[in-house]
C-alpha cells in the first residue's frame, strides 16, 4: 500500500512538475478576476518582478490578489466604438512601370562610377527605383534598384566596349503592360541575357527592366542566386512567370533552356526544341510575344564537345570543351569579345485570336510555340546575313 502511494505521488509529480499539490479538480482560473484592481495588480507585478517570470505556471492560478478592502476601482471608460477595419481599405497599388525620363529628377552623382555615366543613364537608373514599392527597397523576388545601380556601370562597359552591341527594332517592345520577350540562347555564361536586359533598359522610355527567367538550378548556386535575384532575374517556375505577367512586367525567356546553351559549334544559331510554358502564360495573361534574335552569343564560347558522363557524375548540367576551357582553367569560360547584334521582331498577339482559354489546348500551345520558334529563327537568319 505504501509503495503504491509513493508511486502515485511520483507519477503526479512527473506529470505536473515538482513541488505541486494534488489535483485541483474544477478549479476556476478566473475565480478572483472580477474584483481585480489594476493598482493592486501593478503592486503584485512589482513584487513578482524580483523573481524571474515562470516559464510555466505550476498550476492554474488567478492573477488577482487575495481580495481585500481595496478602494473601488475607478470606472474605466469603454473604448470608443470603432468599426472594424475590414473591407474597403485603400491599398497603395504596386507600381510596375517606371516614370518617363523627362519626369525623373536627375539624382546627384555618387562616386566615380556614377560620374562615368551620362546624365540620361543616371535618369534611367533613378526611374528604376520607382519600380519597388514600399519602404524596404526590395521587391518580393529580391530585386534591388541599388544593386542595379552598382552593377550598371560594369555591364554598361561590357555592352558598349566589350560586346559592342548594335540593336534594332526597339519600337516592337511594348512601352508598358505585360509582354514576353523570346530569344535564342547561347554561350556558356549567360551574357546574352545580360546584354538583352541592358539593351531593353537603354532603349526604352519609360525605362523597362526585362525580368529574365533563369533555370531552377541557378537558384541553388551559392552567391549566383543572390546576384540574380538582386538584379531582377527570377527562378523559372510557372507561378513566378504568372506573377510577373500579372504585375505587368516585361519577361525575357529562353525557351531552348539548357539545350540552347550546350549545343555544339556545329549547331550554332540553329534553334533547339522550344519549351511551351511561355505560350500558355502569355495567353493567360493576354500578353504579346516579342521574338528576339541575339547574334553573337553562340560565338562567345563555341562548344567543341560536351563531356556528358563526367558532367553527370559531378552533378552539372553540362561540361563543355571549348578552345580555351578547360585548358585555361575557369578563365577559359570567359566570353570572347565578339560583336553582338540584337534584333526585335514584330509582336505576336496570339491572345487576341485565341484568348486565355487557348492555354488549355495542348496542341494549340505546341503549334504556337513552334510559330514563335520559326519567327525567332527567321530573325536570326536575317540578322546574320
Amino acid at each position: 500500500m505504501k509503495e503504491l502511494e509513493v508511486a502515485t505521488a511520483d507519477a503526479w509529480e512527473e506529470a505536473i512538475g515538482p513541488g505541486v499539490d494534488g489535483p485541483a479538480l474544477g478549479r476556476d482560473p478566473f475565480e478572483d478576476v472580477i474584483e481585480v484592481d489594476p493598482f493592486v495588480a501593478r503592486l503584485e507585478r512589482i513584487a513578482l518582478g524580483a523573481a524571474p517570470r515562470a516559464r510555466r505556471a505550476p498550476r492554474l492560478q488567478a492573477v488577482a490578489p487575495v481580495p481585500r478592502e481595496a478602494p473601488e476601482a475607478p470606472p474605466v471608460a469603454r473604448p470608443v466604438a470603432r468599426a472594424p477595419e475590414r473591407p474597403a481599405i485603400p491599398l497603395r497599388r504596386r507600381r510596375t512601370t517606371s516614370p518617363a525620363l523627362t519626369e525623373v529628377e536627375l539624382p546627384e552623382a555618387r562616386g566615380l562610377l556614377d560620374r562615368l555615366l551620362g546624365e540620361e543613364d543616371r535618369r534611367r537608373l533613378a526611374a528604376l527605383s520607382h519600380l519597388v514599392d514600399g519602404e524596404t527597397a526590395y521587391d518580393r523576388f529580391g530585386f534591388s534598384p541599388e544593386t542595379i545601380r552598382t552593377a550598371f556601370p560594369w555591364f554598361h562597359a561590357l555592352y558598349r566596349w566589350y560586346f559592342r552591341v548594335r540593336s534594332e527594332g526597339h519600337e516592337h517592345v511594348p512601352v508598358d503592360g505585360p509582354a514576353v520577350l523570346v530569344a535564342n540562347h547561347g554561350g556558356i555564361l549567360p551574357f546574352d541575357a545580360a546584354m538583352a536586359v541592358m539593351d531593353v533598359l537603354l532603349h526604352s522610355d519609360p525605362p523597362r527592366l526585362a525580368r529574365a527567367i533563369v533555370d531552377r538550378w541557378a537558384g541553388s548556386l551559392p552567391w549566383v542566386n543572390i546576384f540574380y535575384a538582386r538584379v531582377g532575374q527570377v527562378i523559372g517556375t510557372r507561378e513566378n512567370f504568372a506573377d510577373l505577367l500579372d504585375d505587368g512586367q516585361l519577361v525575357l525567356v529562353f525557351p531552348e533552356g539548357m539545350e540552347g546553351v550546350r549545343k555544339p559549334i556545329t549547331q550554332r544559331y540553329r534553334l533547339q526544341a522550344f519549351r511551351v510554358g511561355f505560350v500558355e502564360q502569355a495567353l493567360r495573361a493576354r500578353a504579346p510575344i516579342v521574338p528576339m534574335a541575339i547574334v553573337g552569343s553562340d560565338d562567345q564560347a563555341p562548344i567543341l564537345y560536351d563531356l556528358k558522363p563526367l558532367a553527370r557524375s559531378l552533378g552539372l548540367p553540362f561540361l563543355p570543351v571549348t578552345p580555351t576551357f578547360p585548358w585555361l582553367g575557369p578563365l577559359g569560360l570567359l566570353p570572347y569579345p565578339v560583336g553582338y547584334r540584337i534584333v526585335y521582331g514584330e509582336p505576336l498577339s496570339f491572345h487576341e485570336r485565341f484568348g486565355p482559354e487557348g492555354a488549355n489546348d495542348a496542341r494549340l500551345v505546341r503549334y504556337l510555340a513552334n510559330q514563335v520558334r520559326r519567327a525567332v529563327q527567321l530573325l536570326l537568319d536575317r540578322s546574320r546575313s
Partner: protein
Amino acid sequence: MKHVLVTHADEPIGRRVVKTLFHDPEVLHILAVGDGPSPRGFDRFLGGAQPRLAYARADIARHRPVADLFRSPRFREAEIDTVVHVPRHGAPAAASAPLVAGVAERTAEARLVLQHSLEATGVESFVAIGSAFVYRLPPGNANRLDEESELDLDPDVAPEARSWIDCDMIFHGELHNDRLRVVLLRVPTVVAEGGFVYLHPLLAGRPGARLRRLGYDPICALVSDKDVARAVQSAVHTRRPGIYNVAGNEALPLSILARWTGRASLPVPGALLGLADRASRLLGREALPGAADAARLRFGFTLDTRRAERELGFRPINRIGLARAGDGSLRLETASL
C-alpha cells in the same frame, strides 16, 4: 456579439490580439490566458465594475488546467463562442525543452485547446495562428506560396519547425468539422515596434549574433503584429472556415532583416554551421538558432494572400519601414498607412 477566449495572451502577438479585439465593438467578452502574470498593457482593460476582459494564468500544455479552464464558471458565464489559439512564440523552444506526453509543448497545447474547443458545446469558432515556415522550400521553389503549396513533411526537419507543422496538421484535420468552424492563419516573419521579430526560425528570440548559411540570402516575407491581430479579428467574424495566408506588402533579404532588427548575421559555410551547432550542444548550450534548418532556409518565399483578401476581407494596412531608434541606429518599425 462575440465572446472570445485568447490563449498565450501574455506573449507579444497574444497581447496585440487581445488589444485589437478589445477595441472591436462586436466583441463583448474576452477571456485571456497566459503563462505569466497579466501584461501591464491590460491594466486599463481589467478595471471597472464589469470589465470586458479577464485574465488568468493557465498552463495549457497540460490536460487538467485546460479542462479546468473550459469548465470554469467564468467560461460558462462569458458564453465563450470563439477560441483564438495563439501558439507559444515568444522564443523558439530549446532543444532540451521538456516534452509533454512525448510531443513538443506547442503541439501539446494545440491539441488540447482544439480538443476542448470541440467538446465545449458553446464554442462555434476556432481561430489559430500558424507559421508560414511549414511550407516545403525545395531549390528553385516558387516565390509566392499559396495555401495549397506543399507542406514540409520531411522527418528530418528541425524540431522547432516540426512543432509548427504538427500544429498545422492538427488544425487541418478539423477543417471540415460541421460543428466547429476552424480558421488557420499562416503568418510569415512577424515584425513589431522596436525591431522585435517573431516566428522566424533564425531571428526570433533574443537579440544577438546569428550564423546563417554562406552564399544564400533568402527573401523573407514580413507582416506587422498589428496586421496579424487584424487578420485574427477578421477571422473571428468570418463564417468561412479554412486556411489563409496572411502577410504584409514588404519583403526583405535575411541579412538586411537581421541588420535592421539589431542582430548581426554572420555567414558561414554549411559544414561549419553544422559543426558549430554540434559543438554548442556538446557544451551544454542551446542549439544555435536556425542551424538545424539552415539547409531549408537557403530559399526564400513570399505568400499569396489573395484568399484572405477575398474571403476574410483582410488587407495589410501597416507598412514596415526604417526608423531611427533612440540610440541613433536604424531599426524596423511598423506604421499605419
